[in-house]
């Protein structure tokens, strides 16, 4: 794996996601990882999230989001690779 590799993944989160804390939390966590994490659609039980960055950090984003803030329960995350740059 080259150190400059990046990828763009679409995360589809399902669960109990309606708490207002969640979307700012996502933005903050992406910021802490230095990657792009843009919410493209959000409802109380589904959030779509475009994540772009080095693959290891995209993995880290998935892990962080799977736990999330205490008033949110993420039941599942579906990941779809949109783009992969070596």
């Amino acid at each position, binding site marked *: *794996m080259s150190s400059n590799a990046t990828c763009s993944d679409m995360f589809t989160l399902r669960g109990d996601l309606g708490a207002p804390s969640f979307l700012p939390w996502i933005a903050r966590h992406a910021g802490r990882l*230095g990657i792009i994490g843009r919410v493209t659609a959000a409802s109380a039980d589904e959030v779509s999230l475009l994540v772009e*960055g*080095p693959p*290891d*950090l995209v993995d880290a984003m998935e892990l962080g989001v799977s736990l999330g803030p205490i008033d949110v329960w993420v039941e599942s995350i579906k990941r779809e690779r949109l783009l992969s740059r070596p």
Partner: protein
Amino acid sequence: MALSRDVPPQVVIPTFVDGRELAVWRSQSGRIAAWDDRCPHRGMRLSHGFVRGESLSCIYHGWSYNEAGLCQRIPAHPDLVPPEAIRVPTVAAVESDGIIWVASEPASQPPPTLTGLVALRSLTVEAPATAIATAAGMPIDQDGALRPDLAGIACVLLVQPIPGDRTVLHVLVASNASPAAQAAVSRALEDLRRRVESERLAA
């Protein structure tokens, strides 16, 4: 908050500024840095870490950070170049006249000048600064210092309050004091501490 001589290259120490826990360390080339004493990965105290070259590494998983606090290496993911976003919050640290000073807020003025003095030792007293000032029979001056004569030598005691109603005294003595005179000051400090602490126990 510490004597330069007590933080030689590759040493990291824990301390406090305004109640905030800090790790202060010196790189191999001699640079001083002061950070939050907590690894952003899983919260381990960085003051338990180790210094290699110009980086401080956490003892738990070896995440290492350069002198600006930016993460350089995550050993579990050796191929990953850590983003600049992964960093340890830092505070300003400067060194002058053998003393390391830190400021959690941007300092409004430079540290006081302490020329003609040499750093002797730091010691922790289980009492607030006011109790020490009372025992020394003088107020703390605008530099945050007590200036008593101990064992017949003019001394400067820089006062660092730390949590738990404790105080660290960073002690300087006249630079022409002989090693024997400095040892006598060190013993006089032990005596001062005993007096302050026993008065507190009695009260």
